[in-house]
């Protein structure tokens, strides 16, 4: 198929960017979206132009490195799918495709379509862990049974890949889905309960410091989440946060 592309080009963080038009021919319907981008870059290199910079790594939908706001939606039109798993059969011959970076104050553009998601790392650093040393001298793994329902629920929350689509989709550029997924995972398991109160306060505080917007329960995040992380996580975090704030002595 032949396509028209409108791609955001920006030399670096300090310059202004703009959408540029590209045409690409003979794209296989079986290629993935990123393989289409590879093809474009190959052609640009041939013409001695600078290829488009975009983040990607595993191309299996699990590392969370790929991003791209495609035709008005994070990770493109298909639900529960990362950009690397989006295939060109979702498009038609002659389509015009807008390709933009994630937009959020907390995710500054580094170059072209690549953004800095360090804010997510800093949020995890503020409390997204269980404070246990890696000595191996812990309880036997089966010493503390965990109800299957809780374990499954915690797993569902833990499948978040930290891609940032929730922020990109949210009209407020809020990071609540990401933060709540980690808070939920750990608060659902006995191992994480000990620090649950402090964790939720610290992580929410860090989230606010990073400059994300507020959650107004729009729900766009969960719709665009490639891992279908549920809004229940946000409710759970709200609950935890409320309880922790009321109980906090600070």
């Amino acid at each position: 198929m032949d396509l028209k592309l409108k791609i955001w080009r920006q030399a670096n963080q300090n310059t202004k960017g703009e959408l540029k038009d590209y045409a690409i021919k003979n794209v296989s319907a079986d290629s993935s979206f990123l393989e289409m981008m590879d093809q474009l870059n190959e052609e640009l290199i041939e013409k001695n132009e600078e290829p488009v910079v975009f983040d990607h790594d595993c191309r299996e939908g699990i590392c969370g490195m790929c991003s791209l706001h495609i035709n008005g939606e994070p990770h493109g039109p298909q639900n529960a799918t990362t950009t690397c798993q989006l295939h060109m059969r979702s498009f038609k011959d002659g389509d015009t495709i807008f390709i933009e970076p994630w937009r959020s104050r907390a995710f500054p553009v580094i170059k072209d379509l690549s953004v800095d998601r360090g804010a997510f790392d800093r949020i995890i650093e503020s409390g997204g862990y269980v404070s246990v040393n890696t000595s191996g001298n812990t309880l036997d793994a089966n010493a503390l049974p965990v109800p299957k329902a809780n374990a499954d629920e915690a797993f569902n929350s833990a499948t978040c890949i930290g891609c940032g689509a929730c922020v990109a989709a949210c009209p407020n550029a809020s990071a609540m889905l990401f933060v709540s997924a980690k808070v939920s995972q750990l608060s659902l398991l006995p191992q994480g309960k000990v620090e649950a109160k402090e964790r939720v306060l610290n992580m929410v505080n860090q989230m606010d410091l990073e400059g994300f917007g507020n959650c107004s329960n729009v729900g766009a995040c969960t719709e665009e989440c490639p891992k279908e992380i549920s809004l229940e996580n946000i409710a759970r975090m709200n609950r935890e946060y409320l309880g922790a704030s009321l109980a906090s002595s600070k």
Partner: protein
Amino acid sequence: MAITGLFLISFLIVHLLGNLQLLDLSIEGQEKFNAYAKFMTSFPLIKIVSYFLYASILFHAVDGIVLVMQNRKARPERYKSWKPNNNSIWASRNMGLLGTIILAFIIMHMGQFWYQMHWGEIGVDAQGNKDLATVVIKTYQDGTAGMIIVALYVISMAAIGFHLWHGFASAFQTFGLNHKRYNPIIEKLGYGISVLIPLAYAFIPVFILMAKN
């Protein structure tokens, strides 16, 4: 937002019950309504609640404006292509706009009736109560101006409807009340409220306007 929001919804229900008395346009009906208005403006407990209400409206509005401003700042560079209808409903994304319409309506509405009731020059009915019913009826039956006011009223009620369509369930989510079993109930209740309350409210001025002919 959630706490004040839910409180304001409860007010909407109480206020609606009072207003529905206006559907009885007979003299006795009007006198009953005037007596009710006097009770609502003078009974001490209700006065206290009403101060809470004013504070809630103010807080809800101010907090809303602050949130909208913060949220706009969180995305300084907008998308050139944005298709939010694929992931969310219009009302959820436009609570600020809807809220602004509602706030403007509240100011108009209070100016027309609440201000009149408290400080305006207003006649008294046969029972000696301030004749608010007549003020209301006159306002809506006042020729073209009345029709415009009724239209504004109806539009504002639509805004309230959309506001509640998102707001009701959203308040529960904010409190962390999200449960697989109860979510559908909360949602349906929210949709019911957001359709029925504004419809009933809008019906009153339309009914009064129609009653003129």
